[in-house]
């Protein structure tokens, strides 16, 4: 391409600067988790591991972490089931309103989280009379997690085609056997990738959670948010944030290994 040297240099510079802006704030959080100064004065007067030890001892944090794991696991299971069913229906059959199904599945993440949040909490609270708790959090999360599984399975089914399944049927396998021995093994990595994304999405969610969690239910994001404005909790919150940044590399790495391509949904 015939770009001038200056233009090239400017574009590369913009890319480098942009990536720096993306990563510097995250690096500061990780660095601050070792900052000896309680209020994160800059530059740090010294480094310490005390905050990591304090964070590990914090029972509130550990309970919140456990709640988050439960909520994300429940939501992921439901999303796997519903997302796979919907993807099969849309990809393998043609029927009236097929496009609407896709739209319906995307809707919960396309609308602002606060709308989904109050719509669900209103329904639980005033229409159905279900007390808010872990169960309602899982239902809320599952609603917007379906799309991640749906998109992954749909893409896989589109690539697979039906000929292998037809071969299986021709060889005498019934519907269930074909699914167990042929279809499912071929979809496994798509399910894993979709499930991973669903788990991450649920684990990080705060807005829908705020409205669907009862008074006693505290997920990790809620715990972080509650402690964000308490000065003496700041170092512990910062450690949790740093740990989450470091841990976020794992799903990326896994997703890369599974799909060989990076995709958000």
């Amino acid at each position, binding site marked *: 391409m015939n770009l001038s040297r200056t233009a090239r240099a400017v574009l590369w510079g913009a890319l480098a600067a942009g990536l720096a802006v993306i990563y510097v*704030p995250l690096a500061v*959080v990780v660095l601050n988790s070792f900052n000896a100064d309680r209020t994160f004065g800059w530059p740090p007067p010294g480094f310490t591991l005390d905050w990591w030890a304090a964070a590990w001892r914090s029972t509130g944090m550990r309970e919140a972490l456990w709640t988050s794991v439960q909520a994300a696991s429940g939501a992921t299971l439901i999303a796997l089931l519903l997302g796979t069913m919907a993807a099969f229906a849309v990809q393998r059959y043609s029927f009236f309103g097929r496009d609407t199904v896709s739209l319906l599945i995307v809707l919960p993440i396309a609308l602002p989280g606060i709308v989904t949040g109050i719509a*669900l909490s209103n329904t639980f609270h005033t229409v159905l009379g279900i007390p808010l708790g872990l169960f309602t959090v899982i239902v809320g999360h599952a609603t917007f997690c379906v799309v991640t599984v749906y998109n992954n399975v749909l893409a896989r089914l589109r690539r697979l085609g039906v000929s292998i399944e037809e071969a299986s049927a021709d060889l005498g396998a019934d519907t269930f056997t074909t699914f167990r021995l042929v279809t499912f093994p071929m979809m496994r990595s798509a399910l894993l990738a979709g499930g991973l994304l669903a788990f991450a999405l649920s684990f990080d969610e705060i807005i829908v959670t705020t409205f669907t969690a009862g008074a006693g239910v505290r997920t990790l994001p809620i715990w972080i948010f509650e402690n964000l404005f308490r000065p003496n909790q700041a170092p512990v919150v910062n450690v949790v944030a740093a740990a989450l940044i470091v841990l976020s590399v794992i*799903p990326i790495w896994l997703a890369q290994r599974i799909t060989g391509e990076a995709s958000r949904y």
Partner: protein
Amino acid sequence: MRRRLATFLHRHARVRLSLLLSAPLAWLGLAYLGALAALLVTAFWSTDTFTGNLIRTFTWANFEDLVTGEVYRTIALRSLGVAAAVTLIDLVVAFPMAFAMAKLASPRAQRWLVIAVLTPLWASYLVKAYAWRVLLSADGLLGWGYGLGATILTLSYLWLPYMILPIYAGLERLPNSLLDAAGDLGARGWRTFRTVVWPLAFPAVVAGSIFTFSLSLGDYITVKIVGGRSQLIGNVVYDNIGAANNLPFAAAVATVPVLIMLVYLAAVRRTGALENL
């Protein structure tokens, strides 16, 4: 028994389809859409000022308050302004980055650059907003303090990858030969950009803007973390549910971002942006 069920299912495609659709449609079509509809209905109810109970009779009062209230108009306009500013900043920052990724980097470097842009999406939303709280605090690295400017800055940071990725995908699809042809015909860099790159990348830009616009419009957490005392639409909804205990009014306010998004989606539909999501 199993065998007969399998045969039955194999022969009746419609039954298979209904079974597959049953649970997803019950969940999203019935429960979720039902919840949204119930919320819309609630927007036309009111609350008893003394007891705080819902009064289930139809009234336009919430929407009248919303339209006539000076405060709400200011906040709605401010939210729109914030969403527009965030979208514009992200566009200006993301476009050169995406262009360098798609057209200058080698295929191997491209793969790593995409991962580099994607990775922060996995880091917790809250953690990233918090990172800016630390950076912007009076004795932090930047020390610029909190307010509406800090909110715009933080939101731009949060949604930047959502703008980079669609533009990158759009530019990657743009054949290099077109750029070469423009050059052969005598167009310099700027002119090639204006007459070839920009028109062809526009749907991708709009696709990115849908994310940045919608995500900024519904946000109330970032404002609380770095916004100082500023308020956006999301805060009004939140406060009316919590402190004010006025669900009908909150529901009415919540229709504002939904309406804005619907108008926005309808306006950009003809650019082909929705196929770029």
